[in-house]
């Protein structure tokens, strides 16, 4: 979408909103519960320096620090063993770029306005705390934060700050990752290896090991995060699924990859070794909404584990859709 078009849409929807409020002053029914589409602001908009130095302000600042320097506060190399919640030296901002404020880089903006929500991975409604702990146990390969810990409350408060003014239940334009249609073929890890060598090695290293800021044991994390190996996310993380890694690689990394290159390089990355998440088979307990690229058992649609890992995914998506439709008609 071009930016002037966005402005037009915003202006139109803003005037509609104001009008609807004014009309609402006299007439029913109320449109105020209808979901609004909220655009994520520019990075400068989310400036914590704008906060006073009070309890809330300090907690929000701590949340941002935890996001940017996770390794230094709750990483596996911090001095106090009780504080070692994360199992690797990644930062939240390794994926949630610009401290969680960048559109289509899984931003935190608006998170407070859309949780609690149903999560297929748990087949249950999750609070924002549960969602944070999902990351802690997967992308951070660690253990959950207690709900009443200062760290958990700091994350929740930081997300609340980033969500200020956003109506509850909104649709956040720029949430998650940007959609991209995967090529309808099996992804090719070998071709992906070549894409990796040409586009990614420069920063992430030939072994995907990233670039440490200092040395092992100093809790200073990475300038460039490791993409696999023992200091990276585990196989229960969303990023270990091919279609997720593909979208991230396409839109949030060098930005010059073609769809085919992003698809293949993601295949290369998911082929690499990484820590294992225990009890993975318990994820997505409602089989009908298990993502087609969740490449771990149980498999419900008769396809091979290979196909769930490398595609082609379009036929799997069709099967899943048929399964869902069948379930819905059974429920009627």
């Amino acid at each position, binding site marked *: 979408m071009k930016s002037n078009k966005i402005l037009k849409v915003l202006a139109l929807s803003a005037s509609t909103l104001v009008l609807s409020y004014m009309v609402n002053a006299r007439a029913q029914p109320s449109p105020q519960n209808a979901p609004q589409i909220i655009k994520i602001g520019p990075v400068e*908009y*989310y*400036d914590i320096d704008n906060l006073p130095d*009070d309890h809330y302000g300090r907690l929000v600042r701590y949340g941002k620090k935890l996001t940017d320097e996770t390794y230094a506060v709750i990483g596996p190399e911090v001095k106090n063993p009780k504080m070692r919640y994360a199992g690797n030296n990644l930062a939240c901002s390794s994926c949630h770029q610009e401290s969680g404020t960048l559109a289509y880089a899984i931003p935190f903006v608006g998170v407070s306005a859309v949780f609690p929500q149903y999560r297929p991975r748990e087949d249950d*409604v999750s609070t924002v705390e*549960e969602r944070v702990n999902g990351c802690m146990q997967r992308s951070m390969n660690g253990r959950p934060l207690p709900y009443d810990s200062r760290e958990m409350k700091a994350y929740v408060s930081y997300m*609340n*700050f980033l969500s200020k003014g956003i*109506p509850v*239940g909104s649709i956040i334009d720029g949430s998650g990752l940007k959609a991209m249609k995967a090529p309808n073929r099996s992804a090719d890890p070998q071709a992906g290896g070549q894409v990796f060598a040409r586009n990614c090695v420069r920063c992430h290293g030939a072994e995907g090991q990233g670039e440490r800021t200092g040395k092992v044991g100093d809790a200073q994390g990475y300038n460039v995060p490791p993409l696999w190996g023992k200091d990276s996310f585990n196989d229960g993380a969303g990023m270990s699924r091919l279609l997720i890694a593909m979208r991230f690689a396409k839109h949030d990394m060098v930005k010059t990859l073609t769809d085919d290159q992003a698809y293949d390089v993601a295949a290369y990355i998911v082929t690499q070794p990484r820590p294992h998440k225990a009890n993975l088979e318990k994820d997505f307990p409602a089989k009908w909404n298990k993502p087609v690229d969740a490449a771990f058992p149980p498999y419900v649609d008769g396809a091979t584990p290979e196909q769930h890992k490398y595609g082609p995914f379009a036929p799997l998506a069709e099967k899943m859709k048929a399964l869902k439709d069948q379930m819905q008609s059974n429920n009627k």
Partner: protein
Amino acid sequence: MKRHSKNLVALLSLLLCAHVFAADKIKMEDQTQIPAAPNKLSGVKYFSPPEDADLQNNAFGDLVRKGEALFVNTKALAPLNVGNEMNCVNCHLDRGRKANSSPMWGAYPMYPAYRKKNNKVNTYAERLQGCFSFSMNGTPPPADGEIILALTAYSYWLSTGAPTAKALPGRGFDEPPPPKGGFDVARGKVVYEKQCVICHGENGEGKKVGVNYVFPPLWGKDSYNWGAGMHRINTAAGFIQHNMPLGRGETLSDIEAWDVAAYVNVHERPQDPRLVEGDIEKTRKRFHADDGVNLYGTTVNGVLIGQGIK
């Protein structure tokens, strides 16, 4: 008691801010206290939560309905957590939907927020737990348990469309200004006997049908304790003025509301669970001296108030 401001420009800019990023940066108010409800503008309705029929039939909808059931029948459904005979809906009328009755849509989007009451930033779960400790005189359910989750989901759903971290008109109880000559317990007794006795009883004991209360007890062992927000006369006056007598809200004068709130809150109720070293005076100094207008730890007609009920 409707206080209307005429500043339409302010309203429009507020709405715009909620919708587009007009400003360069997020504007943050002073967070030392949760902002009170702003005045409702003339001709604008209060926020209204979604209708029951809007709720989906799925896992989320099921959890919301569970939260609603807990909200209405708290004592029956969370007996381990409720130490008196109160239900959430006793203070948050119309299932937590009614403006100026501390509606959930006014509360939920405001958290996490700093509260002077416990001198820390509270998450919504902690705020709910506070109600269980004081208004319900009970034991708070765990923050990661099903009860808090269901009540949170219900509050979230009621807040659909309400802006995150912005105070809406109608949140809280919108307290009337205190009477110029001060409140008067004796005058409050007269109001109580005329307006309240028929439902809440001569001794504030409420009314039961079978084992269930249909009108809540206002004092005594089955009511809120001395740590609850409702023990503040200013808070109770706001609730009463807008909502009592039931179905005839906003018919009492501000003075009547203050007087009858004082009469209700001069009566004994379960002790403040934060009682400091068993000492009412110490407890008054630490928790009540700077907590609105209340009678805890003071002497009224020669009687020390705040002794609690054994």
